[in-house]
């Protein structure tokens, strides 16, 4: 009983280390192949469109409602001791530093990461990846490089949209619904919100974007075992991406300060 428990922990740790190693090796391969010609600009833009443009709507909607919810809740708390003027700074700091990168990355994971993983997984199990290789086209360069770059570039851009709409949502609730003066909201926010806060969110967005695209690619590219294998790879990719976002969020936050 005790023995098997220890064995279970050991296997878990072993598998975790193995996966981290696999991810690192894949990142290295992607970097190596991203700087070599040919550069397939069309593929890259197709991924920009899919990961970025295609996610604008859901990220925008998440942004507006996150800002509104946050303004509503912080209003209730600050109202207890007449500090409603702090709603602006609270909403803006939380959104720019934390909510925007985490929520935008989660939305992109759900929408684009899952699709990336199933697409690559299906290509793998139906030998389309091998076909690329036999046609003298490197599959890492052709399939993975544009996806990983798209994650790295587009998630920070989506974070900007989230920032803007989150703040608008907060403004709407605080000023229009609750009746705080617009001047108070804006000047207080200006006092507290620094460019560094926005930059922190963007850096986090880039880290998360790189991470979720890499995980989706890694799991999909190494999928095996038919339709069931692709399903399993996608589940694993989603779980690992979502957990990874929160874990990375802490460490990136600590590193930046």
């Amino acid at each position: 009983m005790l023995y098997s428990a220890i064995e279970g922990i050991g296997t878990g740790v072993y598998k975790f280390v193995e996966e981290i190693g696999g991810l690192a090796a894949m990142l290295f391969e992607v970097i190596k192949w991203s700087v070599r010609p040919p550069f397939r600009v069309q593929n890259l833009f197709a991924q920009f469109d899919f990961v970025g443009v295609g996610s604008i709507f859901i990220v925008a909607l998440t942004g507006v409602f996150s800002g509104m919810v946050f303004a509503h809740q912080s209003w209730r708390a600050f109202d207890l001791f007449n500090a409603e003027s702090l709603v602006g700074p609270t909403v803006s700091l939380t959104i720019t530093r934390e909510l925007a990168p985490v929520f935008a990355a989660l939305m992109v994971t759900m929408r684009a990461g899952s699709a990336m993983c199933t697409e690559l997984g299906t290509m793998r199990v139906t030998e389309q990846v091998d076909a690329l290789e036999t046609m003298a086209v490197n599959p890492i360069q052709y399939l993975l490089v544009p996806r990983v770059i798209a994650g790295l570039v587009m998630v920070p851009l989506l974070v900007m949209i989230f920032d803007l709409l989150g703040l608008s949502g907060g403004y709407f609730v605080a000023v229009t619904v609750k009746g705080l003066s617009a001047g108070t909201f804006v000047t207080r926010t200006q006092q507290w919100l620094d460019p560094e806060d926005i930059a922190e969110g963007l850096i986090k967005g880039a880290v998360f974007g790189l991470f979720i695209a890499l995980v989706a690619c890694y799991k999909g590219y190494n999928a095996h075992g038919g339709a069931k294998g692709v399903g399993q790879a996608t589940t694993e990719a989603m779980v690992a991406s979502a957990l990874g976002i929160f874990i990375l969020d802490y460490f990136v936050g600590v590193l930046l300060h």
Partner: protein
Amino acid sequence: MADEKTSPPIIEIKDLHKSFGSHKVLTGITLSVPAGSTLVILGGSGSGKTVLMKHMIGLLKPDSGQVIVDGEDIVPMGAEQLEQLRRKFGMVFQAAALFDSMTVYENVSFPLREHRKDLSEEQMRALVREKLSIVGLKNVEEKYPSDLSGGMRKRVGLARAIVLDPKIVLYDEPTTGLDPITTDYVDEMILDAKKQLGVTSVVISHDIASAFKVADNIAFLYQGVIVDQGHPSKLRHSEHPGVKLFLQTWFGKN
């Protein structure tokens, strides 16, 4: 019909060994494929046929031994040399492995787009039409692979494999899982490709009927070695117990 004595070999494999972990898959393969001929590598499931084929195109590296393609030993080659090498090959996959997000035209023109950037769109279209007509297909360019039957998909797979005019075409279990009529259709396709293009073909298969129909030579792979090889009529009367047992399933005990 190619003759082993006159045609120099285009693929030569010498004493090839390959293991995965402790599992020995290939244990001393020696094989040569004369230019312009069709070799069928026959063997049961798990006999290492696919592994052997992957060595020919450099997708796997042997533990020891030589693989000589068109006069060059490919075993020591790096990634870039292998990419050059692979342009001599076209490969037809078991389930065709067409890109399902692309139309037939985009699939067949894919190797041209990647490797023949000097061609104009019209030249590409003409080449794609030509190859599709060689494999006997018309008016399918705008269709998606999911709209085609299994046999047609395989033909599109062959058109894609030959669009860069390779010297060698590899077929991975081309008739597995097909009904008898479609099997016939695919066999004809292999024979036609040889006749019209003069390519060397290597087919891996466990389909005895189809092997005897398309092969100039048959090599029988059994437990990691080639136990018998030669003209189909020679192999038909092989004395090797493994070969006999395998062929009995089709030809009967006598």
